[in-house]
């Protein structure tokens, strides 16, 4: 086992009105070679948890063991076991990606650093064209890929990635997931912090859904989905204002995201829902629709919005 988090609680504020339970008795484990997704909205307490795993802050209650030893006792050891891609961009200034990644590799691995790995990573992410461009001239996506490479060049036992695919184009996102998968083949474990739920579903082995400092659910993506429902979901592309559309009675929960409207329903209600959707198209209210089994996004929304679905 790589990581064992036992009842970690972290409270900010003075215990008065401003008291904020950032982490509330969190318990989970991560095994060798596992990719663990930490899903949650902004302010759910994900970064607070990560900072405690890294020994950057101390839990008020509970303990964290990394490779069998307490992080609270030896925070410096935790930083050498873990490597991190922060959520914010890493401003590398005049350094080129090649220089920045090589320096980070040398800093972490010392004499064991293998310079060939830099080129291999850049090839895998198709980013050789920027390898020698100074950081300040890089696009947001190229900067993000650079800080990803800095985290995985000499990864240690646990790599913590905080929203690694932000700003990255769809093609390179796929490459990036592949690099993450390859890391785990060498026994490295990964914590993936994200609110990009759909993307994470395809990659993670296990996932915890976090909300207001608590884990609402924990398990493999399919376990989580099953725990919420066996429903079908319909996704609509709206051609009108969301208020103009009348959601059919069979919808169990609805969620709107921009011009997308999602709702879930019992499988038995699929035929009438399709008729309903066709009718909406004829009336010009929606552009198209799609039907699929519940995704982890539905589970996530159902869990975090506190709606009883199922």
């Amino acid at each position, binding site marked *: 086992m790589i990581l064992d988090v036992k009842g970690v609680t972290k409270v900010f504020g003075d215990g008065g009105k401003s008291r904020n339970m950032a982490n509330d008795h969190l318990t989970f484990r991560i095994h060798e070679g596992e990719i663990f997704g930490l899903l949650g909205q902004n302010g759910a307490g994900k970064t607070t948890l990560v900072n405690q795993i890294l020994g950057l802050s101390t839990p008020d209650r509970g303990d964290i063991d990394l490779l069998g030893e307490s992080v609270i006792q030896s925070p410096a050891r935790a930083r050498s076991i873990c490597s991190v891609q922060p959520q914010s961009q890493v401003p590398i200034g005049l350094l080129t990606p090649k220089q920045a990644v090589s320096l980070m590799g040398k*800093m972490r691995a010392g004499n064991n650093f293998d310079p060939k790995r830099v080129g291999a990573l850049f090839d895998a992410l198709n980013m050789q064209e920027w390898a020698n461009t100074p950081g300040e001239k890089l696009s947001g996506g190229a900067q993000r890929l650079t800080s990803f490479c800095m985290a995985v060049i000499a990864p*240690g036992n646990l790599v913590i990635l905080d929203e690694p695919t932000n700003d990255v184009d769809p093609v390179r996102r796929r490459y990036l997931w592949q690099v993450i998968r390859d890391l785990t083949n060498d026994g490295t474990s990964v914590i993936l912090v994200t609110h990009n739920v759909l993307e994470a579903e395809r990659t993670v082995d296990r996932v915890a859904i976090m909300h207001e400092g608590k884990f609402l659910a924990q398990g493999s993506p399919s376990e989580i989905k099953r725990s919420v429902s066996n429903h079908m979901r319909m996704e609509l592309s709206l051609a009108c204002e969301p208020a103009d559309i009348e959601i059919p009675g069979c919808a169990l929960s609805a969620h709107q995201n921009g011009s997308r409207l999602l709702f879930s329903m019992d499988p038995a209600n699929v035929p009438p829902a399709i008729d309903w959707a066709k009718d909406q198209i004829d009336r010009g209210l929606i552009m198209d629709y799609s039907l699929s089994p519940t995704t982890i996004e539905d589970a996530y929304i159902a869990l975090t919005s506190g709606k009883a679905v199922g």
Partner: protein
Amino acid sequence: MMTTLSHYKYVFQMQFLRNAGFLVVMMLIHILISIGIVIGFTYLIPNPDTSTILFLATGAPTIILIFTGLVVLPQQVGTAKTDGYMEFMRTWSVKRSVILGADTAIWLLITIPGIIVSSFVAHLMFHPGYDISWTIIPALLMIALTSIGVGYGFSYLLPPAASLGISQVVVFGALMFSPVNFPMERLPGWLQALHEVLPIYSMAEVMRASLAASAFDANMGNYINLLIWCVLGYGGAIVILNRK
């Protein structure tokens, strides 16, 4: 030991290269400022005598060190805090003192050309009576470490806006209201008392005693003052870097 050394090397490279453009510009600006202090003040003071010039010439290096440690550095730390780089550094698998040490060396390096060039120019133009003692090396180090240490201390402790404010006051105060470019006696009593506590006066005294050893003297109190501020500054910075 070996790992600490190699960590130091890589952290130094990382910190220096990512900021190299700014640092080189800063180095050039320091050269201009220090020459400017010596020449500029002679415009302010008509027909200065040699002792006035000597005060200016031996004050300029101190101003440069104060400027670097208490003005430029806090601004850089403020930027690093705002863009999240500071938080990123805290995740590195190296000792925090290694990061602080590498950064200190970089700041020290960019001040030295200004000090050497301005002293040389002042000497050629005015012959103010430099009498450089071997103590210049430890004195320079001590003053620089105090200034850089205090700069780290308050800029790590305070939010970026507050440390920016302090650095603005410091640059004006050090130039106009501190006994760096003129004798302490000219200041009102309360400012004299304040400067007995603050490190600026002691920096100036120690610097002068090394650059013109036959004309000036620094007392033990000055060295102790610097030592205390230096320890406070770095100690505070380390505590804050390690704070949880």
